[in-house]
């Protein structure tokens, strides 16, 4: 009993000091809530793959030169009857929603159909949505490299009137949206059916960082 009677009881001041220290450690070690994204986070974030092409205005484009901006990169072609136009319209809506903050947004539509999507054709297509959007023409080798660099699948369908004809053909392609942050890191992806309402909050976070 004597032993218990002589045990030191921590003072109130000591308890407070310990609690404060614990809180400090938690703050310093980053115990704040983890960012919740609507898109799928790339973990760990990696530098965005190489993307070099010619913009619809004839100027060379290199994604690495967009550092300082948040970039949305997606792939398609202008002879795409169904989905691609809505993809561009959706991103136009995203840019409209962001308002002035969209000044730091680089929207990059990459054609996977170099045969039909000349720079001139892209110039008649992309600015209809927003003249600040990039519309890239890549050559055949650059398109072929998208698989290894971006994990983007591109498959050309048979021309409608036979393999040797110059008739209409589809281009099946990955419909993912890739989001690159101001530091050039690939941070998020969205599936083809993501909505503008789901993309805007994530972009606001990245634009605010």
């Amino acid at each position, binding site marked *: 009993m004597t032993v218990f009677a002589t045990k030191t009881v921590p003072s109130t001041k000591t308890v407070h000091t310990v609690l404060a220290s614990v809180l400090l450690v938690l703050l310093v070690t980053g115990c704040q809530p983890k960012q919740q994204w609507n898109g799928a986070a790339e973990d760990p974030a990696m530098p965005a793959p190489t993307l070099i092409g010619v913009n619809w205005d004839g100027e060379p484009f290199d994604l690495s030169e967009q550092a300082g901006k948040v970039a949305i990169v997606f792939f398609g072609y*202008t*002879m*795409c*009857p*169904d*989905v691609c*136009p*809505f993809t*561009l*319209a*959706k991103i*136009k*809506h995203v840019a409209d929603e962001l308002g002035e903050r969209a000044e730091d947004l680089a929207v990059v539509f990459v054609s996977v159909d170099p045969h039909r999507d000349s720079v001139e*054709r892209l110039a*008649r*297509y992309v600015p*209809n*949505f927003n003249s600040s959007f990039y519309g890239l023409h890549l050559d055949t080798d650059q398109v072929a490299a998208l698989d290894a660099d971006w994990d983007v*699948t591109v*498959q050309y*369908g048979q021309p*409608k009137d036979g393999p040797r004809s110059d008739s*209409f053909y*589809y281009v*099946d*392609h*990955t*419909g*993912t949206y890739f989001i690159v942050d101001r530091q050039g890191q690939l941070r998020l992806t969205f*599936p*083809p*059916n*993501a*909505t*503008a*309402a*789901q993309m805007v909050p994530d972009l606001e976070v990245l634009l605010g960082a």
Partner: protein
Amino acid sequence: MNLFTTTGMAAGLVLWAILTGCGGRGADVDAASTSTAPASPVLAPILEVTEPRAQLMPGVGAVYLTVTNSGDEADHLVAIKTAAASVAETHETVVEEGVMRMMARPEGFEIPAGGSLELAPGGKHIMLIEPQPTSDEGGTILLTLHFATSEPIAIEAIVTTPASGDHAMDHDAAHDMEHDMEHD
């Protein structure tokens, strides 16, 4: 049975067919809504076309619409005829592991009895190749839908451009995304 009786029976059958409307509805240019209920006891589809719209771009386009079947037998949309494009076919966009694939559907699309067929962005649609360059936004293009059972229905699709968007896409995409996220 003499000739007079036979002729009389044939005339009676024709009259019955006309009265009961089993000759179908025929083409109706103002066909945003087109349906006539047959009083015939025979099972039959009863089709109505709503919200026809054409999304046109240089060299290519798509037509979206809804066909509702209030009848008691399924039908199929099997062909589309139009002078407004060089080709009009039934196609479908399918997403497989993030890859958007365009599939020709030469067999057409079913319109189930008591159900509907929705042609909407990102799914089933009528693909147009080389639509008429004169088909400007706000104008219309004429198409005739051909069915396996029902009479053809002529429609007038309102022309939109990509930049003007399609509200049906926003709705469908939002729904799909919510559905996907529930399973994450």
